């Protein structure tokens, strides 16, 4: 059993595979000797050298495109975008190239690539460096999307993401890098397997990323009021662990879905639609959903906190249905 931060676990996952396979390489803006904008890649340049840990120019299109081209020709690239917000600049390479190549070419080209995408608000980085854009990714056939919420999951999902033969979007919350947690297993966590972070019988809270921790705080508070909430973290957004969701709702008959995305068009809507289509008969209450406000992420700390969903919002929403 080791204790690691979320950032260290991401790094450890990358390092394990880089030590095993010389075809795994890392590139992105300032990931080299500088160690990455958030320090996640610190020490990797020293360990693996300039050939395999490469600083790129500020060229997001070329970063994602180079991941596509190198993955198609024998490497397993790990590409880091400094912020998920910069996806906009490289979106063609992701959506029209990475996601579609295998399909358009009749399954004859594989793209074993991982794009690391630091996401989320709460660090005063304002509207262009704080977004949660998961639903842009889950919308695109051809991409897999993971979003770990703990150091253990960060490590296990990184290993599986690198092992996967498809483009995997690895969303990581930048406000969780320093969060510590126990890492009991150094094994891969299969993509598509969710996890019950807290068991409960009265209501299911499905939460992703940093919202898992808000949901756990809410669940602790609700327990004091006699409501036992189950907190379910899908961990992989696509493929989604529908079985686990069904099992939980079968037990609780009530569900609240929480993501940090602004609510309009959030992935929580897709999860809600799946539950409504497939598991309506299991429900004893309307599906509830929480997200951030439908606003660009504000800068001023008070506004930013007001914009974000939190444990209190979650508790209040649970009480409405439980």
């Amino acid at each position, binding site marked *: 059993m080791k204790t690691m931060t979320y950032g260290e676990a991401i790094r450890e996952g990358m390092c394990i595979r880089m030590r095993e396979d010389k*075809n795994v*390489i890392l*590139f992105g803006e300032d990931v080299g000797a500088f160690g990455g904008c958030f320090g996640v890649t610190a020490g990797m340049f020293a360990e693996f050298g300039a*050939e*395999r840990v*490469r600083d*790129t*120019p500020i*060229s997001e*299109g*070329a970063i*994602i*495109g*180079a*991941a*596509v*081209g*190198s*993955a*198609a*020709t*024998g*490497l397993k*690239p790990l590409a880091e975008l400094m912020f998920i917000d910069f996806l906009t600049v490289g979106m*063609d*390479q992701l959506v*029209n*190239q990475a996601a579609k*190549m*295998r*399909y*358009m*070419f*009749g*399954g*004859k*080209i*594989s793209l074993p690539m991982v794009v690391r995408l630091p996401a989320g608000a709460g660090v005063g980085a304002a509207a262009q460096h704080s977004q949660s854009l998961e639903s842009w990714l889950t919308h695109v*056939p*051809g991409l*897999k999307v993971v979003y770990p919420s703990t150091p253990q999951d960060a490590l296990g999902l990184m290993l599986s993401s690198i092992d*996967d*033969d*498809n483009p995997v979007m690895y969303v990581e919350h930048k406000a969780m890098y320093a969060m510590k947690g126990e890492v009991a297993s150094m094994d891969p966590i299969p993509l598509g397997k969710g996890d019950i972070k807290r068991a409960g019988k009265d209501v299911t809270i499905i939460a992703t990323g940093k919202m898992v921790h808000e949901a756990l705080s809410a669940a602790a508070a609700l327990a004091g009021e006699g409501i036992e909430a189950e907190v379910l973290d899908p961990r992989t957004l696509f*493929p989604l662990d529908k079985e686990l969701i069904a099992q939980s709702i079968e037990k609780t008959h009530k569900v609240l879905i929480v993501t940090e995305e602004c609510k309009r068009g959030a992935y929580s809507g897709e999860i809600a639609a*799946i539950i409504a*289509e497939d598991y309506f008969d299991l429900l004893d209450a309307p599906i509830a959903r929480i997200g951030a406000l439908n606003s660009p992420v504000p800068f001023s700390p008070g506004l930013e906190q007001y914009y974000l969903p939190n444990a209190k919002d979650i508790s209040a929403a649970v009480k409405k249905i439980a």
Partner: protein
Amino acid sequence: MKLTKEKLQDMYLRMRKIREFETKAMGLFAEGKIPGFVHLYLGEESAATGVCFCLRDDDFITSTHRGHGHIIAKGGDLKFMMAELFGKETGYCKGKGGSMHIADRTKGILGANGIVGAGHSIAAGAGLSISCRKTDQVCVCFFGDGSTNQGTFHESMNLASIWKLPVVFVCENNNYGISMSQARHQAIKDIADRAASYGVPGIAVDGNDVLAVYEAASEAIARARKGLGPTLIECKTYRQRGHFEGDAGAYKPPEEQKEWLEKDPIPRFVKFLTENGFSAKELEAIDASVGQEIAAAIKFAEDSPYPAVEKTVEDIYSDIIEEVRTR
């Protein structure tokens, strides 16, 4: 650079294959047998041939929406190409890609591409892969004049130059980005000049002279194989047809069209060959064999089945077949 008779013959064969394939595709499209869009390579055969003639099967290329010529020149199979144009199950991409998305990993063809400028960074990635794997392969990136105004051109030329990647950027300046002439879409005459911004060699060649293209490409590819980094080659050529079939190209001045048809690369190369030891009979024999191969490709395409609709949701991932339930 002296080429043997055998090599010259192969060069002519490839150019003729492209010409005939495209001519037949034009007719088949007009007959309604090919769905979607086709962007023909007629008039540019010398560029793809001259470049791909320097490549091995394990070298890579990235191509464009106007990609048939590149794929044929790199050794693509005409049967699988034609079947793909028809949308048949036996096509290169099982009918899922079509004219603009043909790939053949076994021949290093990383795909034609429907997005103008998208091949640049994929080629840089292939170059990165070669560089990390330490082989002497190269990747050639084919693109048109129009794509040199995309950000990816700049990003990828820059990346390839700082990392000295074994990528040869081959611009086929056919004078048009869709309907916009080069004079209207950029303020420079020689795209090769842009190489200076990246500290790499830039060469403009007569793209309709297959031997001139071959010579420039040989040098650039040798340079790349030695780890000396990228080169930008501009092949000045001309798109004889519209942007796609169905575009009559009314924006092209008739005198310009006439001037370039006189510079058609195939009669030019035929003239060279007849002056250098080839008899008319030898060339006719090549033409006849090409005609037969294309007829067989068309028959293969016509006789092949369309893919079963259930295949729609396959090949999206390596390991997941999408559900059909949630239409």
